């Protein structure tokens, strides 16, 4: 049976989460601002149509937003984290294996679905997610992660496909790949794209057909793997893909079930360490993470538990110590005794360029040294207590740094005092309103 992966992602995910609980903005343009209300990090189609670009600073578009009645929100990461957990819980009912790539993107193993049923299966999944959570999604299916991602892109850009595109059939790929610009392929950006264009490689079809060796010379081993993946040969692990602005995840299925808090803390600390390395290598930082864990859904005998928690860091960071601390806090909050956990992970979203929030701790090229320093830090702090030795760059006295959340929506799904309210009375302002 040929391998098939589906990449499912939420359309304008943060904005869609806001719309679920605020029906007044169902047809208005919506944008969500990054931490500190800096720039637009999520836009609905209506907002994009107004010319609001990704990452555009808010002060530049404030007037445009006011003129066009754009609904502007501060980011509500707790809400997005909870909605993301709901999406993944549904995905786990629909696929034997789910790999989380970011807060709103997951790979589902569709291999066992007969090829002729895959489109319909994808559409049913989409409809279910939409009804159960209110979040619109797109589904891209392919034999490799790169092709699944590309299929997802095609599904997004072509309304007539009904939100689902399947590229497992080579004949279908032959139709689509020559029509798509090479820059749309995962991991092909900026410098790589310019080099390819100089060689006359303009479409994804051209890239697929270039000699793999040349791709390696031009764009290192990642380039070579990308070419192979476009041919349908699966060779990329999620971890090899560069983290995108919208985030990255580190997750693992456990070899044997984890039943104790200590073992769980150890596991998430390892993920945080890995995540820290990854962020520093790419010069990125995060200000919050989602920690999740769940039991196996194939084991019906034992009680099941699935939970997640969004943790906010004091300030944005790529410092392993900060990340471990956050991961452990999250794990403590969701872990429950008496369950055999099969999988856990951490997801970081809305990554920012290091230095724009707080200063990066280490130079991006100095990984080995930083790892050694981190190990030494851990050892010393383990012996003399946390905080005995603090990286000077992290600041001995934490900066007075207040996060701005002027326009944040309520934490509808995670706080009792913030639940959405259903009016049980006359609609105010309607024709038939009465006193």
């Amino acid at each position, binding site marked *: 049976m040929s391998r098939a992966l589906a990449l499912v992602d939420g359309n304008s995910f943060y904005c869609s989460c806001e719309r679920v609980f605020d*029906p007044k903005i169902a047809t208005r343009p919506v944008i969500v601002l990054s931490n500190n209300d800096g720039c637009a990090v999520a836009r609905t189609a209506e907002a994009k149509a107004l010319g609001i670009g990704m990452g555009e600073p808010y002060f530049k578009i404030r007037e445009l937003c006011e003129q066009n009645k754009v609904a502007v929100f501060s980011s509500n990461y707790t809400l997005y984290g909870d909605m993301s957990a709901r999406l993944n819980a549904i995905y786990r009912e629909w696929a034997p294996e789910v790999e989380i790539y970011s807060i709103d993107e997951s790979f589902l193993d569709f291999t066992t679905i007969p090829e002729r049923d895959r489109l319909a299966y994808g559409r049913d999944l989409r409809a279910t997610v939409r009804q*159960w*959570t*209110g979040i619109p999604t797109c589904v891209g299916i392919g034999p490799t992660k790169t092709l699944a991602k590309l299929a997802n892109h095609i599904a997004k850009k072509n309304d007539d496909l009904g939100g689902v595109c399947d590229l497992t059939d080579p004949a279908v790929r032959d139709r689509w790949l020559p029509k798509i610009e090479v820059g749309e392929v995962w991991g092909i950006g900026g410098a790589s794209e310019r080099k390819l264009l100089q060689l006359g490689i303009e479409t994804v079809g051209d890239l697929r057909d270039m000699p793999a060796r040349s791709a390696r010379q031009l764009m290192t081993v990642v380039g070579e793997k990308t070419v192979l993946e476009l041919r349908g040969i699966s060779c990329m692990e999620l971890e090899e893909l560069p983290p995108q602005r919208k985030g990255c995840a580190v997750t693992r299925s456990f070899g044997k079930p984890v039943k104790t808090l200590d073992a769980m803390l150890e596991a998430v600390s390892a993920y945080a360490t890995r995540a820290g390395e990854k962020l520093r290598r790419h010069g990125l930082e995060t200000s919050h993470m989602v920690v999740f864990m769940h039991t196996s859904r194939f084991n019906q005998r034992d*009680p099941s538990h699935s939970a997640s928690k969004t943790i906010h860091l004091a300030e944005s960071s790529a410092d392993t110590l900060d990340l471990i601390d956050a991961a452990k806090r999250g794990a403590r909050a969701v872990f429950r005794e008496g369950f055999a956990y099969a999988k856990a992970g951490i997801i970081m979203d809305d990554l920012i360029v290091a230095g724009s929030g707080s200063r990066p701790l280490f130079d991006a090229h100095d990984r080995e040294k930083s790892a050694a320093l981190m190990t030494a830090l851990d050892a010393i702090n383990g012996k003399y207590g946390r905080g005995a030795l603090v990286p000077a760059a992290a600041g001995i006295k934490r900066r007075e740094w207040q996060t701005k959340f002027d326009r944040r929506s309520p934490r509808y799904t995670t706080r009792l*005092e913030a*639940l959405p309210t259903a009016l*049980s*009375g006359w609609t105010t302002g309607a024709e038939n309103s009465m006193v």
Partner: protein
Amino acid sequence: MFIRLKFEAEISVPMFEHGLCAGFPSPADDFLDESIDLNVLLVRNRPATFLWRVDGSSMRDVGIFHGDILVVDRSLTPIDGDVVVAIVHGERSLKRLRLDGKRPRLMFENADMPLFELPEIAEIEIWGVVVCNIHWLRRQPGRGVQ
């Protein structure tokens, strides 16, 4: 009978399988059943279930009061007679849904209030079906419940 409540996210109510016994206790009662989990009882489909707060008293006659907490399941297909969270003109509202006539109707459940009527052009969207209502009979300190 013996009831113990744990004040945690996991709410469990262990109980003996047999009722009160006046004679010798059954030796089988040494083996407690598993705890009853209120989450399992109230939440049938977790990813699709959301909690809502009631604002107003238009559903008073069916025991839904201001400040109560509704368990709303979006995965259920609404049927005639369901209490639903409905979006009417962009407003999130609580109504009884009737599907017995030509057109869907939304109703109040409060004898002191006039019949709820929708204008002809009303746009209605059913956000979710209310599966149960959590109504405290004793004041909950610090919970914002009256």
